[in-house]
Each structure stands twice: as structure tokens, then as C-alpha cells.
């Protein structure tokens, strides 16, 4: 296991700790972002070594062990975009909820929204 992998796993659990303790929705979303980046760092750090070269241009003529793996990089660009897309939707929903309830606290928001959903009837 490389050092980069160890660090990424630690970060993953740090963010997980944030998720299970967070009482605030903004903080939960921030922790999700961190968790996402930890997975990305892990993916890119699989073959990490000091002074590794990007798989671009001249450095491609070097032996394989000195070049970074291009596939995870292409994948992680996709993962970054997906992460941002999900975050953006999260934030827009959160903005709506704070409009309605004036709070960003999980329990408070829940109490204020759920109170109105009690009835099963429609108007």
C-alpha cells in the first residue's frame, strides 16, 4: 500500500466521521465533497511514486513505471463532474429548505417540514 493510498483512506474515514456527527446540512454536504475527493485521490494514488510523470507528450517515451496511469485520470475527471453536479443539486434543495424553514440544522428543518406532511389527505 502506498503512502497516498493510506492518506486517502484516512481522509475517507475523516469525512465519514464528519457525516455521522454533522448536525448541519451544509456541513454534511461539505463532508460529501471531501469524501468524493478522497476516493479520487485514492484512485490516482494507486501507482504513486516520487516524481512520477504525467502521461503526456515527451514523458511517454520513459519506461512504464515512471509514468502515471492515464485511465484513472480520465475516469476521475468524470467523477469530479458528477460530484459537482450532485453537489449543485444538493445546494439548490438546501437553499429551498432554508427559505422555508430559516434553518440549516437537520433536526430543525425536519421538524418544520414534517409538521405539515402529517395528513394523508389531499386538498
Amino acid at each position, binding site marked *: 500500500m502506498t503512502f497516498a493510498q493510506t492518506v486517502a483512506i484516512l481522509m475517507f474515514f475523516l469525512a465519514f466521521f464528519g*457525516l455521522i456527527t454533522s448536525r448541519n446540512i451544509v456541513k454534511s454536504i461539505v463532508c460529501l465533497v471531501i469524501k468524493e475527493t478522497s*476516493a479520487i485521490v485514492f*484512485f490516482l494514488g494507486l501507482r504513486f511514486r516520487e516524481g512520477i510523470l504525467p502521461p503526456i507528450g515527451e514523458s511517454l517515451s520513459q519506461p512504464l513505471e515512471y509514468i502515471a496511469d492515464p485511465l484513472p485520470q480520465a475516469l476521475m475527471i468524470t*467523477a469530479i463532474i*458528477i460530484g459537482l453536479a450532485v453537489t449543485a443539486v*444538493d445546494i439548490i434543495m438546501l437553499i429551498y429548505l432554508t427559505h*422555508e424553514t430559516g434553518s440549516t440544522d437537520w433536526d430543525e428543518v425536519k421538524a418544520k417540514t414534517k409538521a405539515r*406532511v402529517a395528513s394523508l389527505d389531499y386538498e
Partner: protein
Amino acid sequence: MLTYFVIAPILIAVFLYLLSSHYVAKILAIVVQAIFLGFTFFLFMESREQAIITVVGGYADSIGIILRADMLSSAFVMLTAFIFLITAIYALNESWSKLYWLLIYIWQGLIIGIFLVRDFFNVFVLFEVATLIVAVLILFLRERRSVFDGLIYIMVNTVAIQFYLFGVAYIYMLTGTLNMDIAAAVISETDKSQLILPYVLIMTAIIFKCALIPLASWLPKVQGIPRAPSAVAAILSGLHVKCAVFLFLQFQFIFEPVANHDFFLGLGLLTAILSIIMAFSQDDIRLILAYSSTAQIGLIIVGLSTNNADYGSLYHIINHAIFKTSLFLTSGMLMQIYKTRDINKITGIFKHSPILGISILLSILAIIGAPLFNGNISKYFIMDDIDMWLYVVLSVVNFGTIAIFVRYAFMLFGNPKNASAVLMHKNKVVSVLLLGIFSLFTGIFGVWIMNFLFDSQLSVSVGSYIEKTAIFAVSVILAVVLCKYRYRLTKQLNYVQALDINFRGMCISIGLFFAIMLIFVGFL
């Protein structure tokens, strides 16, 4: 060639969306769906001879993305096309904007993509896009109170899918490829101790998507959203969750050296029993259906985890998609007629509209496994040839299902007190009746259809069939008694009904599930 099955719905969706006339777009949508269903049938017939493999872009198969249609996946593709056609007919008269049709067709493309693709990372991408689409569709009618549930749904899905991403990273590290077939070949030669963590990471996410019990709470939450379109709720438990069940089966094959069947057997049973208790305690018809979905998925997982009942489970996936779609669609019609979702306030469906009553009755008979119906055949093969204790437990589970739906069936009788005179749209009646008749049809010719779909050599033995029919009859009588005396349990059931889990709790349960599974697979 297979890429067309994924890309075509998406392309058509965009094309129809750009079309100016709303009316033409809807009619075209139905026509295109029908043609598409025909194509999927041809795909199925072709793949019966030999699995079809397409490398996207025509590169070497080890570095490109591979789509593969074998008999199983093409059968599911056909099912997807069928269910989407029916739900499209159902939603034909709604005056929703074109956005609905755009999203629903893209969703179809994604579901078919998950059934066909043989690439670890592409599954992640497809699931993420599908998650977002479900969130938009579920909140489509802008029910403001439900945004909270929508937010939880998206966030908790993201948490789970990140476990999958880590698992994929390990798979890539061990095998050097993302192609499932090549990876499977490498994995079969890899040291077992290396595989435990990737297996558990991936399975955590997949079980979350399957909605098994410690991680199931998102599905009822989403389906219980007050004004979520019925068609969306139907597809969600009919097909969207089945993608995950399909992937569960695939990953069990890929991780053959470490695959643990006992764990999932127990998990499936736990899910089935707890969901039945949850379903029995609810008053909201949507939630009853949602929890019964998780119970049925538990049953399917049990079937897939026993040694010899695969075909029954696979057929149950198809059957469950058919009758649960019908139940969800009819629940939407009931909500329109009675203006409520409270099961106690809905009475006298037969008197109000007999055709609707008949289609609900057909689906109920199918889900409880009445003789001649499709649920009966698949449950017969799930419970065929298994250990005695499991047989007893599954009989109890089936009794629970019967109890839930006997209570559901009480809605059919009596006088329609609260009913309003809503016009019954022909397209809605046709679509649900079609599904009801289809579940009868797939029941009567069940064994033949199973042999056709899965190329198996199954047959029903008369002795055990009579035995199971007797058990069924006894269960129905007991269930009627239980439902009659349900009011005595009201206090306890209300307590169960009020159980709720918050976002933190969901994250903890994901972590807990991960830990338990890791310990179970790793140490035992």
C-alpha cells in the same frame, strides 16, 4: 449494435423534447416505445442463440467499454421496454410538461445501459445519472414539502456510491482492467485475502441500491413522497431497484472465490420479515406498497442465495415488476378518486368502478401467489427443493405478504363513501387492466415462459403443488382473521409506523453494514 438500445431512447427523448407540438410528441412517444419493444424482442431472440458483444467504438475489448447481451440481460431489457410502454400509456392523458417525457426516456436508456454494460466504472456513472433523474422526477409536481426527503435521498445515495468507487479502485488495482469479464477471469486466480475488501465495498453499495433492510429506508421515503407521479414510483421499485439486483447477481459470479451466500440469505430473510411488519403497520397505501416491495426484493435475494432456486428468483424479478407496477399505477388512480392515501378511508372500489377493482384484484392475487397467477409459479420455484427450516420461514413470509394484501383488498368491498366522480381515463384503465391480465397470462403459461426465457428444463410436480396450494388456502384464512383483529394491535403498530431514521442514522447504518459484512466475510 447494442449501444443503440441505450442511446436510442436518449436520442429520441431529446428529439421529442425539441419538437414543438406537445400532442404529437406524446403520440410519437407511444409509437416509438412500441417499436422499441419489438426491437428488444428481436434482441432477445438473437441473444438466445449466442451472447451479443459490442465494444463501443470498436477498440480492442480489453481497453474499450463492453456491452453484452446474454439471455438474462436481454430478457430484462425486454421487460424494461414493456414496463415503460405501459407506464407511458398510463401517463398519456396527464398534462405534464414535456420535461417529464424527456426525463423518463433518458431514465429508460440508463436502466437498459445498466443491464447491458460490462464495465465497472460505467455502472457508477449510470447510477449517478439515474439517481439525479429519480430526484427530479419524484419532485416533478413540485411538492414543496417533499424537498427534504429528496435531499436525503440524493445525499445518502452519494454516500453509498462512494463505497462502490473505492471498491472499483481496488478492482482496478488488482486486475488492471475495468472490464467485468476480464476482471472475473483475473479474480478467480487472485489470492482470496486480497478480494475481501473490494467485494464488501462493492456489495455495500449494491445492497444499498437493492434496498435491503439496514439500508432500505430510502426507497419508502422516496416512494412515499406525497405527489410523486405513480408511474415513477412504479418504475422505481419495478425496474430501478432490479438493476441493482441484477448487478448483485453479476457480482456474486464475478467474486466467486469470496462470494458469501449465507450472509445474503440471512439478510434477505431479515429484510422480508421486517419489511412485512413495517408494511402491515402502515396506513398510507403508497408506503404499504413500498415496504412490500422491499419484502419481495428480500425474497428474491433469498432465492438467488440458495443453491438451486435461481430461475424462480429471476422469474420473480419479472413478475414483481409486472404486478407491482400495476399496484402502484392503480394506487395513483385511487388517490385521484378518493383524494387520500389513507387505506382506512378508501372503500368500495368494486362499486365505484368495477374494471379498476378487477385489475387491482388481479394484481393482488398475483402478489400473494394465488394459484394460476405468476407470483405463484415464481414462489413455487423459489421454495422448491430447499431446507425444511427455510421452507417454514418462507411460508411465514408469504403469510405476511398475504396478510398485507388481504388488508389491501378490504378496500375493494363496501360502499364508496368518500369517492369523487372523477373521470376514469381510458388509457389508464387499459394499461392497468393489461398488466393484470398479463400477470394471469404469465402465471398460466408460467413454466413454459420460464423455460423460454431462461432456457431451462423446469416442471411442476403435482404433489408439491397441491401441498403449496393447501398452505396458501390456510394462510389466506388466517390472514383474514388477522386483519379482522388488527385493531387490537393498533398501539404497537402505530409505534412501528412512527419509526424513522435520519440522515446521520442512515450513514451510520451504511457504516455498520459495511463493518458487519466485512467481519462476516473476512473472519467467518
